[in-house]
């Protein structure tokens, strides 16, 4: 099973984590998630955009249209202050969750 779907709910965390490094456009985010997960996670790229929209509505990310190096118009997403706080919190939540699941699986 070389590829697996991103767990429901974790996509937001992944996006936030990726964006915490630098502002990026949607395609960039999808590439970065793929690279970072060493090809294991294959984000359905289309689902990125509703997720980004959701994050923007929650005030965790901001977006603006910029011109890329290839001189194309692209929408760049950037973490807001609230988004930065959320990364820490969500990461901690995730770790607790994984640990809990580990306990159960090893029991």
């Amino acid at each position, binding site marked *: 099973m070389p590829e697996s779907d991103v767990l429901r709910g974790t996509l937001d965390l992944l996006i936030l984590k990726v964006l915490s490094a630098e502002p990026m*456009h*949607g*395609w960039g985010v*999808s*590439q970065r998630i793929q690279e970072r997960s060493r090809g294991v996670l*294959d984000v*359905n*790229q*289309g*689902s990125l*955009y*509703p997720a980004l*929209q*959701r994050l*923007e*509505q*929650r*005030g965790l990310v901001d977006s603006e*249209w910029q011109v890329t190096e290839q001189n*194309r*118009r*692209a*929408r760049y997403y950037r973490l807001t202050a609230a988004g930065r706080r959320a990364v820490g919190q969500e990461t901690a939540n995730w770790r607790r969750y994984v640990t809990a699941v580990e306990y159960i699986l090893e029991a």
Partner: protein
Amino acid sequence: MGFRNAWMRVRANFRRASDEQDLQDEIQFHLDQETAKHVRHGIPPDEARRRALAAFGGVERTKETYRDGRGDRPLADVGADLGFALRLLRRNPTLAGTVILTLALGMGSVVAIFSAVSAVILRPLPFTQPDRLVALWENNDVKGWRGETAAPANMLDWRERVSSFSGVEAWTNFTEEAIVVGAGDPTALRAVAVTGGFFRLLGVRPALGAGFDDGDTWSTGRRVVLLSHRAWRDKFGSDSSVVGRTLRVDGRDAEVVGVMPGSFGLPSEDTEMWTPSHWDPQDRGQDWFRRAHFMRPVARLAAGVSIEQARAELMTVMSALEREHPRINASMKADLGPLHEYLVGSTRRPLMILLGATGLLLLIACANVGNLLLVRAAAREREVVLRRALGASWGRIVRQALTESALLSLIGGTVGLAIGWWGTRVLVAWQPAGLLPVSNVQPDARVVAVVLMLCAASAAIFGTAPALWSAQRPAADALKDGMRGSSAGRKAHLWVHGLAVGEVALAVTLTVAAGLFVRSYQRLTLVDPGFVTSGTVALTLSLPTRRDDPPQALTAFYDQLLARLRAIPGVEYAALTSHVPLTATGLTMDFAIRGRGSDGAGREVLHRRMSRDYFKAMGVPLIAGRTFEDADGIGGEPVIIINQTLATRYFAGRDPIGQYIANDFTPDSSSVWRRVIGVVGDERQVAVGTPPQIEIIDPIYQDPRTGFHVVVRGRGDPSALFRPIESAISALDPMLPVLSIRTMEGIVDRSLVRERFMALLLAAFAVVGAILAVIGVYGVVAQAAQRRIPEIGIRLALGAAPAHVRWLILRHGLALTAAGAVVGSLVAFAAGGVLRQLLFGVSPRDAFTFATVIAAIVVTGVCAAWFPARRVLRRGASEVLNR
């Protein structure tokens, strides 16, 4: 939803077009990047593009999710639903028009009547703390008085002794036509005398100037008047300088101290002037001051006192007054009630009946609309099931149905509001005087709120009911039904039929009520009032300038006046009377017959003064004895004429002629005995529907006074006499205005205006209701007949007689209307008691009315079924030929 989110949603609605472009650009950018990546890895562009799209996973789906996420979806859908609904309405304009018109008629009638109810009953009186004001009245079981006017002396005693009242004031129970000189031509203003503290008690201040003082109650006070806002506007050109000006009022100088606000209309909206009561302080201890009942007292409850406490105290005080004045106040009681209730008392019941009638009409309209929409929903069931199968959620379908019915209801409500607004104006313009005690009747916020509620309710019911009802049916069934072309299921059948029967039932109830009022009115018009109405003119004159003339001068003036009137060509008789029947009755008195015990004494006998020719002018027959002669004048023997009711009731088996009657219940040495010289036929004095009262008539020449009426009998059209009469009077005395001049026919007609108004209005509602009900029956029968066309074709082909087939359809209409008629008559039968008080000579369970209404409804119902029957026969036959 945070503020930011909400803002984005709102913004999204305005920016949908540019957002859509952004979304397109963003996805395009993504796909281009992805494709470029694959191309960089050596994959051919076409394949690269394919892979990019695959990785993206459904561009359109993403866009949809994204659009949903924008949060403007519900609004966008409403737009789509509205568009869809409008298209449907355009496609079926007859249905839409019928629904809208039906709703509009129903709501319009409710708006008009509810506006009146709101203005009259719901709106508080425009006084300070109006709920603390009570009306007071006197009751006397022995005399049969209920809610009678109070004697001034009793009223003043209440003021002094009942501590539950912080004040007691009163208006006099009669309106006088006061002749006012000082504003151009002499003009007559309807004036009411009030006690000095009246306006202060109510807490109403004049719009201009000042009010009366407590001292003005007594003749030692000022001679002042207050004008109504309307009189100030119409008769004095809204001239503020009128305040402080001195006018000649009934021949005496009086200063205008103020102008009341337009909202003030007590005792009546058409009161034009208020004068202080100006009682002589000497009268306070006089018997007559406690014997004459002519005040309508109003009291303000003291702080913290309840109505019950005040009533108890009033009763105690009244018992004390009965002990202190045993002769005058014998068995006299008093009671009180909220002023508002008291003022609207006689209006409440007719208004409530009218409101009930419009309610029935609205229910019929709603049932009709419900039926139309149900029938259509049945026809559209297949569409709904298909949409459902294609993935539409129930919520979505119900929402769409709701949008459609809300649109219909809203248009219906708007048109209804317009009809109601117009109807209210017509109602106010045509309302008989006294039906509505207020003039500013117009749809207010409350009315609009009611209409909006009605709209919302009808939209909710008509919108969801059909959809929910189809929801309960398994899709397969519905689709099968749809395929077969017969769409309505059993449940729909029941609903549609139930609604049609209900509609007919409501229409029957409404029509029976209307029929009863029409018959009651008809009975009234057939009543013989006891006088001849054709060819008779009645006019009202006042002689303020001759108020202080000696009696001889007055009778001389009468002679001149009557001689001039008789000299007019075409005039046969001219006579004077103190009261014209059906317009006013005057005071009542006690009486006793000489030489008889208590069986020969009575109370409450009406009194009128008349001149010699009155009976000839009015066509009142002389039954026994003689009428007045010229000798029955000043200084002559006191004589009287009695009416037949008095003769029958008090002289049974005796000859009244030559008997003597005094105006005292227990005569003493001071009593004046007057000889009965004649008995005349009964006139209906109070109202056409009220039996003649016992009456004693004095010769006016023995007691001449200044305010009086003239009756003139002529040949031909009585209104042709108006001008000659007026010029004859003006030639005699240019300062003597004719206050009113009317034909007796007009007076009788006007006295029935209230009954006619009720009958007409109810009949109009009933006709609309019946038409709606018949349309409902027609719709149901036609729909059912349509479905049966194939079956009927087969029947015809197998040799069924057309008459038999026609009967099949007619029977359907008959069954619906008959069932409705049975239910409706039962309801009308049970509820009839409500109407009893307002009906004349007709039982609320009048068999003729019920039979006529039922027959009419059933016949129209069957007629309504005739058209579908004819069509089905024709179509059924051609169907057979086509196969």
